[in-house]
């Protein structure tokens, strides 16, 4: 039987490994499932796994290797926007196709990338609207110092002003930073109603610890997070996170049948306690979307696949998803409250699905995808 090669390019080592290994696992799960059912266009999928090593230039190098040496049909990979940005020119130069599964800041529309993670209007803005609807008017923005939080917050700030709410402060801490004394002191002085948190990784644990030591709790100063999913929640622990909020396109607790099946399959392979997150669900679906597009195009050729993928729609663990012409997903948005075992209970959800808008109209008027 003949085969087709695809690349899986995530950080298997370094700081991002914790998040990305499970995302790679989810993609692998989908590939195994597909191979078990006979592959794509009659070909078995062969995975070429590469390690981005949490180092953005390495992502570019490895992408180049996958495209020019292994000649893979497509690549599933990336987490941070920085890694995506550094891979982008490689994909454009070599005419490759990348499936990127993580929520991001928008403002990018490469014909060579399928962005399935949330656009700002599919996570950040719904969360803001929900917060305002709950009566939280004074908003403090806290994030890691890199492009996604900065840009997301830039958009949020425009909308905060637009919605006549108050921005009570904005602080950034270097990626991986663990010292929050000054930030908490500033929060004290600002007296916000709610914190919108775009901190990444371990910084969250330190932040919640120090937030708690300073006498705060969810009932006095709630925090809505965009980068804390089930896995992170488990790591931070119920004791610190209980009652705090997160907004995503997916929670492990979603009751739909496709999700039940996905969770069961993943946990069968990786252990019953394994947490499952939004980026994992996206990565899992990325493979299926690619398969559908290949079959529709009857070709593995990346640009043919890119053309064919638009309009493809399926029932997924995330609910109903459809690929929009700009290469992102039309999908639902959920806000959940953290509870036992790092699971989130949905407390609010979008009315139906939300169309992806890479460029926020308020923050970047007049910009659209080509």
């Amino acid at each position, binding site marked *: 039987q003949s085969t087709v090669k695809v690349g899986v390019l995530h950080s298997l080592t370094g700081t991002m490994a914790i998040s990305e290994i499970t995302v790679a696992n989810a993609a692998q799960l989908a590939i195994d499932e597909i191979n078990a059912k006979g592959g794509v266009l009659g070909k078995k999928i062969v995975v070429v796994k590469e390690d981005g090593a949490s180092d953005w*230039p390495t992502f570019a190098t490895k992408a180049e290797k996958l495209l020019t040496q292994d000649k893979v049909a497509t690549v599933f990979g990336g987490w941070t926007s920085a890694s995506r*940005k*550094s891979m982008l020119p490689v994909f454009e130069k070599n005419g490759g196709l990348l499936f990127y599964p993580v929520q991001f800041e928008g403002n990018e529309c490469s014909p060579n990338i399928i962005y399935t993670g949330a656009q700002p209007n599919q996570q950040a803005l719904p969360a803001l609207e929900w917060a305002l609807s709950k009566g939280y008017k004074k908003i403090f923005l806290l994030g890691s110092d890199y*492009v996604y939080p900065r840009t997301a917050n830039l958009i949020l700030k425009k909308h905060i002003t637009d919605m006549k709410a108050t921005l009570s402060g904005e602080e950034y801490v270097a990626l991986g930073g663990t010292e929050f004394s000054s930030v908490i002191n500033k929060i004290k002085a600002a007296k916000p109603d709610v914190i919108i948190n775009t901190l990444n990784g371990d910084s969250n644990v330190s932040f919640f610890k120090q937030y708690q030591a300073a006498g705060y709790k969810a009932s006095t100063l709630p925090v809505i997070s965009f980068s804390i999913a089930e896995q992170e929640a488990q790591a931070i622990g119920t004791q610190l996170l209980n009652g705090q909020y997160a907004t995503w396109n997916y929670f492990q607790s979603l009751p739909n049948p496709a999700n039940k099946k996905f969770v069961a399959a993943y946990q069968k392979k990786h252990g019953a306690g394994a947490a499952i997150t939004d980026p994992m669900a996206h990565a899992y679906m990325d493979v299926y979307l690619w398969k559908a597009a290949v079959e529709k195009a009857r070709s593995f050729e990346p640009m043919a696949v890119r053309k064919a993928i638009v309009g493809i729609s399926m029932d997924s663990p995330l609910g109903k998803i459809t690929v929009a012409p700009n290469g992102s997903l039309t999908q639902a948005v959920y806000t959940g409250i953290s509870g036992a075992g790092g699971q989130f209970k949905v407390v609010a959800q979008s009315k139906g699905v939300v169309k992806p808008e890479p460029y926020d109209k308020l923050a970047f008027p007049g910009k659209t995808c080509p």
Partner: protein
Amino acid sequence: MRPSTSTIAVIAVLIALAFAPLYLGAYPLTLLGRVLALSIASIGVSVVWGRTGILSLGQGLFFGLGGYALAMHLKLVATPKGELPDFMLYNGVEKLPWFWAPFASAPFALAMVLILPAAAAGLVAWLMFRRRITGVYVSIITQALLLAFVTWLNGSQGLTSGTNGITDYQTFLGVGLRGPDVAHGLYWVTLLFVALALGGTAALLRTPFGAILTAIRDNENRTRFLGFNPAAFKIAAFMLGGLLAGVSGALYTLHLGTISPAMIGTAFSIELVVWVALGGRASLIGAAAGLVLGQLAKDRISSAAPDAWLYVMGALFVLVVLVMPQGVAGLIQNRRRPPAPMPAPQNPVAQNPVTREVSDAV
């Protein structure tokens, strides 16, 4: 002067490398080109560390300046007229910052690729060597400055694009950077720069300038009392190292299509030094070869066994230092030459740094 066997060997290798596009596949060739671009920085490390005894852990700073100088130009070229680079837009920057504006000019940017790193290296060196800061202090300070630079880059996204770095270039001097055909051209240009850097530096070190650097490394005070101003020579050597790092950074940026803080950070700078140590810090060719081979090995091993790679690299660091302090080049040389005398600590007089007479004199 008759060329030595090692010169002939190096020329032969360079010629063989020049024909690489004929026998290497696309990926190995890009990889080789990239690694060759980096080797220019390692030549600088060899001058600064191997020859002059200054261990800079901040070469990434100068590498980055060269890379960013070129990247800023490429970014402006890729940005439609009258618009701001995309990342500025996303960060709410409304006007092109003043220090960006001149980089629209290619000659200016190219000049800056050379001037910025050399000038920055000169300034850093002047600050340190003027105050006679030496040894590990220099290592710690250069590392701190690099960290400050990287932190600033990360924290000033509106100006620098932060962790993402500057990316997404289209053309350079009118030549498209996305076409598959540019790969060979870029490779040859890189190789030319490597040859120039090697030849030029070697020629420079063959003048008494090279001897002075060695003299300063071995006994700075003595050199001073012979009428030389060690600070001036150290600054010059440091600037040369900075310049080579800058050129390397610019070429590397072209190869990779991006420059970002992660590419120039502490890990990069220390790794650079270690590959130089592996090849042989005192030998230009050893330094360059150590870097090329080390990076190629890294590419291989990290693909085959990602988890093992850090163990391999860590162990390599330790072993090189313990087993072959002069690197591979040192091993080769030792076989040809009678053994060098023991390092100074063996010597009872040098061993005794406390006696005022002795310590102050030397």
